[in-house]
Structure formats: C-alpha cells, structure tokens
C-alpha cells in the first residue's frame, strides 16, 4: 500500500510554518544567548576552588544534566507557576528549561576551557593589578574561546533541536505548528518530513561551520 506523497497541502500552510520557524529561531537564540552568558558564571564557580561556589554550582549542573529536557520544560510549565507569584506562559516555561539546560552544559565547556590554560596566565594578569573579571575577559577567555568554539557550536545545534520539545507546552514553534496543521489537513507524513527537512536545512550548515573550526589550527601559533 503505497503512500501518495503530496506536499501541496504543506506548501499551502507555509505561512504558519514560517511563523513556527521564526518562533523556533527566537526561542533557540534567546536560550543560547542567556545560556552562554550565565554558563560562564556557573563554569567559573565550578572552576574555582571555593566550596561555597563550587558546591551549589555542581548541584545545579548535575540536576540539569541528569533529568530529561522534556521533563524540565513540563516542570517549568506546570509546577513552577505554583511556587512563583506570576504567570508562566509556554514561551517562558520552555525558555527557562532550555536556558538552564544550556547553562549546565555550557558551564562544563567553560570549565574545561578555563582548565586548559596555564595558571601563569591568570597570575600575569593578577600581578599587573587586574581584577578577577579583567583577568577573565582580557587574558583567559580570548585564549580559551578558540578551544571552546567547536563545543559551543555543537551545543547550539543540540539546543535548536531541543526547541521542538517546546511543542509539548503548546509554544508555537515549528514542531507545534506542524502538529496543529497536520491534524487539520490530515497530512502528518508530508508535514513531519518537511519539518525534518527544514531543521536539516538550518542546522547542517551550522555543523559544517563548526567542523571547520575544529580542524583549523591557530594561525598565529602558540607559545
């Protein structure tokens, strides 16, 4: 029993799908920016030897690394509103879940990046009279960035794929739009095929780009 492929119904609902893609990109970009920003602080806390920084950061990272993202999003949608005094809409719940997840994973990338630099680099900055964050931003991160970039790229690809999980709380990203449209126009086969193709079209160039950074050496050499 062959299926009669017909993408015309998909094309007919392109406006809805484009809206979904836009929401996917917004959610992904938001979580990526926030995740990378806060990830630095959690990573620095894990990197530091101080127990009062290390311990809470480690608990945070382990909780988010060892629970499914789907559960995290559901939790922020259903349970979180009970303990906070404000409304949590689908976007916010998904954004919090995915951001914290990205914080947890990127903090480990930061930590490894910070560990890869010799202690003497921190000391040289410190001896000049730099504050901790001046050492971080002027001396350490510029050097570590090159080594961390491929890992961050991979993380970004993972994150954009995970945005599809936001469909469970009915946030109107690509996956959710496809689900809605396909129940109306009875074309789930073509619809999800299209969704897969769209994701591939967006993410494949990213992975290629990331791989180029992995293979390319440092043009200046390193002392």
């Amino acid at each position, binding site marked *: 029993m062959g299926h009669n492929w017909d993408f015309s119904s998909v094309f007919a609902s392109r406006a809805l799908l484009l809206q979904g893609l836009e929401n996917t990109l917004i959610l992904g970009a938001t979580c990526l920016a926030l995740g990378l920003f806060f990830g630095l602080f959690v990573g620095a806390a894990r990197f530091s030897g101080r127990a009062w920084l290390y311990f809470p950061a480690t608990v945070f990272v382990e909780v988010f690394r060892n629970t499914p993202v789907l559960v995290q999003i559901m939790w922020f949608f259903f349970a979180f509103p009970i303990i906070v005094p404000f409304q949590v809409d689908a976007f916010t719940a998904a954004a919090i879940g995915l951001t914290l997840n990205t914080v947890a994973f990127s903090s480990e990338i930061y930590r490894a990046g910070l560990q890869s630099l010799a202690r003497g680099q921190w000391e040289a900055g410190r001896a000049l*009279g730099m504050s901790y964050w001046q050492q971080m931003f002027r001396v350490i991160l510029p050097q570590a960035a090159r080594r961390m970039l491929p890992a961050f790229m991979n993380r970004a690809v993972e994150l954009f794929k995970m945005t599809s999980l936001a469909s469970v709380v009915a946030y109107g990203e690509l996956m959710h739009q496809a689900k809605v449209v396909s129940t109306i126009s009875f074309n789930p086969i073509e619809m999800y095929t299209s969704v897969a193709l769209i994701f591939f079209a967006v993410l494949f160039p990213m992975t290629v780009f990331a791989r180029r950074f992995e293979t390319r050496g440092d043009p200046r050499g390193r002392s």
Partner: protein
Amino acid sequence: MSGGRGADGAGEALRIEDLRKSFGDLEVLGGVSLSVRRGEVVVVIGASGSGKSTMLRCVNFMEIPTSGKIFLGGALVGRERGGGIEYREKELTRLRARVGMVFQHFNLFPHMTVLQNVMEGPKTVLGCDGEECRRRGNLYLDRVGLAWKAESYPSQLSGGQQQRVAIARALAMEPEIMLFDEATSALDPELVGEVLETMKALAEDGMTMIIVTHELGFAYTVADRVLFLSGGRVLEEGTPSEVLTFPREEGTRNFLRGHGTFRLPEPRLD
C-alpha cells in the same frame, strides 16, 4: 648596610616586618623582616624550597601572609584588626598595580602582540587612553631594546626576548618596586646574558628591585645587599662581598660551595 643610593629613612620603598606564611601545617616563612630603600637592589638567594618565591609573592599579595606587616611606600597594607591584619581584595588589586613582577616562565599573553602585551596593564588597569597607552608601550619596549619587535607575537621571539618583553610589561605600569623571581632560570644559557643586562640597566637607572636569582656573579655586581634565605628565615644579610665572598654562616658557606665559582653576566649581543 651598603653605601647605595638614597640612604635616608624617608626613602623607604618597602618594609617587611616579621612576615610569616604557612600552607596548612607547613611553615614556609618563619618571620622575615626586611627594609628596602628607594633605588636599592636586594638580591635574595637560597636553596630550593627555602621560601624565596613565597616571600616575593607575599610582597605583591599573590599570597596572603599568615601574619606580619608589609609597608609599601611607608603605608601599611591592610588594616589592623584584633591583633591581625585584614586585607580587602580591592585594596590588594590596587596595590599589585604598584608592584611589578617578572616570572620565571615569562607568562606573556600569547594572543596579543608584543606591544599589546606591554600596553595591556596601562590600558586595562590604569585606564589610559589609546594614544597614551601606545606611547607608554613603545617607550618601555624601547627601554628593553625591543621596539622593533612591537608587532610580533610572543611565540615568534626567543626566550630572552620574551623575558625582556615581560620586563617591559611590568615597567609600563611604572611600579614603585620590581620583583624578579628567577627571571633567567628558564632560559638557555646563551640567552641569560641579555636579560641580566636589561635588569642591570634598570638597577643603574635607580629602580628599586628585589631579585631572586641563582646567578651569583650578577648578584655580586648588581646587588646593594644580598639576603641568604634558609628554611624560611634570613640566615645572613649584607653587602655582596660580605655574603658571597666572606660568609659568616656555615649554612651560607654550604650553599655557596654547591654553586662553585660564579659566572659573570655575558654581554648582550644584539
């Protein structure tokens, strides 16, 4: 006391009083006292593990002393509280900008050019504007004879040149005192001379310096005063000829015997 420059008390650059430092149960410094006049060059010698580096690192508070007082430019660092001294990180960060340090392994910033390395302190810490930073950078690079390498990256320089850049980087902060922790120990023998020459020129310009080194010939010619550290204490102190040629203490004699005859610094070639 040697007949160095500016011997009056008002010209005191640094005073250390009964400095102690322990790492856990290990007491590394057991009460070191030292006063350094402006323009004076103090060389610290001693066996490995005697606490030389720790002493230097306490002076710019890379390590926090367990007890004791440090006065920089006549003023006590930290504030006295309940028999001890309380240090605030903000104050220590400002203080480090006034003390230059040169490391055994240079620790240049590999992602910056030579000039950017030298400009980095003034720019980030002192907040000078672009032109002024650049001027300072070039000035101090010139002082170490490396203005012509301004646009190179550290990895493109020899070890001796890298260390001279590291000296320029510290000088660009226009510090009140310079600390050198075995600045030539990581260098191939043929590169030691150029770095020692640079340090000697600084000393002749009147820079206040505390130098930890194993180059006894250099110590002999450049030091106003030599300190022999043993087990975290000053075992012997005096002019170079007192300590290096006529040591009173058995410990000093043993140490010097292990070093054989000293080698005088070689002339710089470039």
